[in-house]
């Protein structure tokens, strides 16, 4: 999500599942929705059947999504930036962009600082020792009035439009073919179909998944896709958007709730080491508008923050102690999972908790992960299932060859409930919070996660109460107002994150009390920075109001026929179904496409088929931009200093590249992402093409879900045994036929599997050489009702995206041999 926020302001799927039916063109790239999201994919079929939509699939494999596509174009894994950069070049050089949209709703005309530059694969400000950039020069030019300078004529060579044009003119169809292996004719056909939506009345949606994120430059792939959509005017409109099809049922929710190293709920962030002053902490996160009349909604940051601290620490958070600012840990650096496992590997960690998470299977380089876990003093696994992680210390022959006697980790395994045995809400990919109800008791002594967290916490708190210890204040003062302290109920927690009034709240205009003390709030617009409101997650405010649980609403009527169903459950923010929907109307507030209108200015207020994602009373002539979270008011092509590796996405090779060079430059420092973090010892175990000549990629099968369904009988019957896929030409070269047992090796280990020889994968001509792909489904392991298999992350490299540290699971090198 570190790519959408720097572009649009929020890190989430812009549209929603049913809205896909409104698309005229559907691009599926970096994903395989037909197999990974089958019931969501039905809306693509609806679009094809009832909206005459064209489905375009770009993928290294001819997937089941491709099998129903109007056009399929092959691509080498990990080269999506080149492909999409080529699309940008096509659109700009042929002037197939939606002019009205880009001029008014993007930073096209903004002038960029002279310090920004790009040369031979590297942006200005690079420090090769630190493998990072000094990003201060990557900014706009500001005028004396404090606002960013613009050139509405777009002629200034330092305006974003001109810089972008210059940056992408190197991404020619020839270069696309050379790097991606996509035949030029197929590439140009894709461009032509996409360009057909650069009009007021046609929409393209992009559906992507982990095929875009799991690269050392994954965030920049997504950004390139987002830029294409902006050029075409496809953001904020029905049937448009950049739509992250998220992998887990509540990955959106857990991210919204900020369960990450550096986050707090609602995309607020922890203070850093250097942020010692509360006021400076707030001001930095509450940016003033960069252009006149812009909303810059994050200016309300302090209201959200103080309300959070009141929810967590109650009366202990006061104005005098800066709302318990010191209770929050200060971040020295990002402690993402890769860093944590590296620290663990180096013996720097004592304990670790895995709540419904199986890291031994889910992160790269299993050998390193297992060795890391073995250095812990204690590991606590909370899960409904017997995971591999919980038995990392046990010998399972060649699948997990360890000696338990040598592993001194104490491991606790605590049984939790599964979805069917608990109440609560999940946030789907389209930001919709849907409530679910408990259907049965869990097996034997299994308990809900909430009871387990309470059990651990209350015991810890009692120990601090009795014996004291290191800074006990936040633990002792954590609010715990639950009916049954040993098992906080979902309805109580949902009310807490929605927020409530702590005193009678009155309207400053007329003094009328609109919420009494203790009442639930209607939305985050009612939050205050003076300690009079509490709210555990401002983004979810409105989900459980005084009127009740909006997430449990079940009216599926669709009066406009656009699939919006505004009374079904509840979507953040404030039940808006399509983000940035102000951009579906022109500068005068009239829908670009009257057939599929979203919101419009009715002469008095904004109204429409969706909840306006905008200031309701802002007259179109005020010129407020649709991207209200950005201080610019518009969307960003130029990401300023928000991306680790540069304001414009640039092609880099995967760390394990089958061609060894980056055809976009001649700089040995810029073959792979120059800003990606690589730990000592991991660079050394990257493989080289002479030993491992094949481009490998991992993926899911439609019959399985990650490492869960190998515990279910029916999935294990449907897909019982581990296999890998190779193309016919490679199989011939290697003397492998379908059904042969093969060994697939990377520089980190090997797996054995059955070979499936297929027409779905073909060798591609890249930079003058033939590159073959090896496809590796991920679903096997040593704890299973299916046949035991190898964890596929035995093969994968320990490096992540430079912004999010998402591991590079989709592009690495292997060799393959018949056993």
């Amino acid at each position, binding site marked *: 999500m570190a790519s959408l926020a720097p572009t649009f302001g929020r890190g989430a799927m812009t549209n929603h599942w049913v809205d896909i039916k409104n698309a005229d063109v559907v691009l599926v790239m970096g994903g395989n929705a037909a197999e990974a999201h089958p019931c969501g994919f039905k809306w693509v079929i609806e679009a094809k059947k009832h909206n005459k939509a064209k489905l375009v699939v770009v993928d290294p494999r001819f997937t089941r999504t491709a099998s129903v596509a109007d056009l399929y174009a092959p691509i080498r894994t990990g080269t999506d930036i080149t492909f999409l950069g080529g699309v940008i070049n096509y659109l700009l050089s042929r002037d197939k962009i939606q002019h009205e949209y880009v001029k008014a709703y993007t930073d096209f005309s903004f002038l960029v600082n002279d310090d920004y530059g790009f040369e031979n694969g590297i942006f200005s400000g690079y420090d090769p020792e630190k493998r990072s950039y000094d990003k201060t020069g990557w900014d706009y030019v500001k005028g004396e009035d404090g606002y960013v300078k613009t050139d509405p004529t777009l002629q200034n060579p330092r305006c974003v439009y001109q810089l972008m044009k210059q940056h992408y003119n190197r991404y020619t169809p020839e270069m696309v073919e050379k790097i991606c292996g996509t035949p030029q004719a197929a590439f140009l056909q894709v461009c032509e179909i996409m360009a057909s939506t650069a009009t007021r009345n046609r929409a393209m949606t992009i559906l992507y998944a982990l095929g875009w994120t799991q690269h050392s430059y994954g965030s920049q792939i997504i950004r390139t896709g987002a830029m294409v959509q902006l050029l075409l005017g496809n953001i904020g409109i029905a049937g448009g958007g950049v739509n992250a099809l998220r992998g887990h049922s509540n990955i959106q929710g857990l991210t919204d709730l900020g369960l990450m190293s550096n986050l707090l709920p609602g995309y607020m962030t922890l203070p850093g080491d250097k942020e010692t002053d509360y006021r400076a902490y707030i001001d930095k996160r509450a940016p003033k508008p960069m252009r006149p009349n812009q909303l810059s909604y994050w200016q309300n940051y302090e209201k959200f923050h103080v309300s959070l601290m009141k929810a967590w620490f109650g009366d202990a958070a006061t104005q005098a102690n800066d709302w318990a600012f010191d209770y929050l840990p*200060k971040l020295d650096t990002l402690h993402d999972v890769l860093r944590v496992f590296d620290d663990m590997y180096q013996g720097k960690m004592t304990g670790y908790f895995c709540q*419904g998470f199986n890291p031994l299977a889910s992160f790269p380089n299993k050998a390193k992960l297992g060795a890391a876990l073995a250095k812990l003093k204690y590991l606590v696994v909370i899960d409904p299932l017997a995971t591999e992680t919980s038995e990392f210390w046990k010998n399972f022959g060649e699948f997990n060859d360890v000696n338990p006697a040598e592993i001194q980790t104490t491991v606790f395994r605590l049984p939790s409930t599964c979805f069917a045995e608990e109440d609560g809400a999940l946030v789907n990919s389209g930001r919709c919070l849907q409530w679910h109800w408990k259907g049965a008791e869990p097996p034997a002594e299994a308990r809900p996660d909430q009871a387990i967290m309470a059990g651990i916490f209350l015991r810890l708190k009692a120990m601090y109460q009795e014996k004291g210890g290191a*800074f006990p204040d936040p633990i002792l003062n954590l609010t715990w107002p639950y009916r049954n302290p040993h098992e906080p109920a979902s309805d109580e927690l949902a009310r807490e994150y929605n927020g409530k009034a702590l005193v009678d709240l009155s309207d400053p205009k007329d003094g009328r009390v609109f919420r009494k003390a203790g009442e639930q709030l209607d939305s985050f617009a009612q939050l205050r920075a003076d300690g009079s409101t509490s709210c555990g997650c401002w983004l979810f405010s409105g989900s459980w109001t005084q009127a009740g649980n909006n997430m449990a609403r079940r009216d599926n009527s669709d009066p406009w026929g656009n699939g919006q169903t505004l009374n079904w459950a509840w979507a953040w923010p404030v039940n808006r179904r399509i983000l940035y929907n102000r951009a579906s109307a022109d500068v005068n507030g009239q829908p670009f496409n009257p057939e599929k209108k979203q919101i419009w200015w009715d002469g008095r207020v904004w109204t429409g088929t969706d909840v306006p994602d905008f200031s309701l009373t802002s007259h179109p002539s005020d010129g407020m931009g649709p991207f209200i979270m950005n201080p610019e008011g518009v969307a960003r092509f130029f990401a300023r200093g928000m991306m680790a590796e540069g304001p414009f996405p640039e092609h880099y090779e995967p760390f394990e590249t089958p061609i060894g060079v980056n055809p976009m430059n001649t700089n040995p420092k810029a073959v792979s992402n120059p800003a990606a973090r690589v730990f000592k010892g991991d660079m050394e175990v990257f493989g080289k093409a002479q030993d491992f000549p094949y481009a490998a990629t991992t993926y899911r099968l439609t019959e399985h879900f990650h490492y869960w369904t190998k515990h279910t009988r029916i999935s294990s019957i449907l897909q019982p045994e581990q296999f890998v896929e190779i193309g016919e030409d490679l199989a011939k070269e290697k003397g492998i036929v379908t059904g042969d047992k093969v060994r697939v090796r990377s520089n980190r280990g090997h797996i054995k599997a059955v070979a499936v020889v297929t027409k779905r994968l073909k060798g591609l001509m890249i930079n003058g050489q033939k590159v073959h792909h090896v496809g590796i489904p991920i679903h096997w392991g040593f704890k299973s009702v299916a046949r035991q298999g190898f964890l596929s992350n035995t093969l994968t490299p320990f490096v992540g995206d430079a912004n999010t540290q998402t591991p590079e699971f989709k592009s690495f090198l292997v060799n393959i041999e018949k056993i």
Partner: protein
Amino acid sequence: MKVTRRQFFKISTAGLGGSSIALMGFSPTAALAEVRTFKLARATETRNTCPYCSVACGLLLYSVGDSSQNVRSRIIHIEGDPDNPVNRGSLCPKGAGLLDFIHSPNRLHYPEVREPGSNAWKRISWEEAFERVATLMKEDRDANFITRNDDGVTVNRWLSTGFLAASASSNETGYLTHKVVRSTGMIAFDNQARV
């Protein structure tokens, strides 16, 4: 007159219409004529959502077992919720097999511990589990909590214990987990969003 089911069909096929036989009083006993009871008719229907991917298909869970003391309800069938605007009653191969997930033989039933160097699990009580886990946490936190950094700045962080949360858990579990984890000062904190 008593006629067994088999005899009844024999008579019917002998040339007389079934309805007229019934009129004449020839009919099998009611119990024999009844079709097998449709199990779902007496099951409890609960609305839920699929825990797998982010389409979040609506589900109908059917369980049997009333709320009597010592009776545990058991889910016997799962199907797609036709009211849900996204999946409209459909489920994919994974979702259609959810019953086997709930009843997987690999579900965990009791708290367990594996002691250092041991090759086996040992069943323990929840009380023992909470006590031992909290003790280990406190020992580590008290030993390694960083109140100030090298520059003397208050940082109040705990780096030597980490926590991975699950992005298949509910908002409510996630929210409570975040609240507890941050109160301890932990920063090595993540969820599946990164993978």
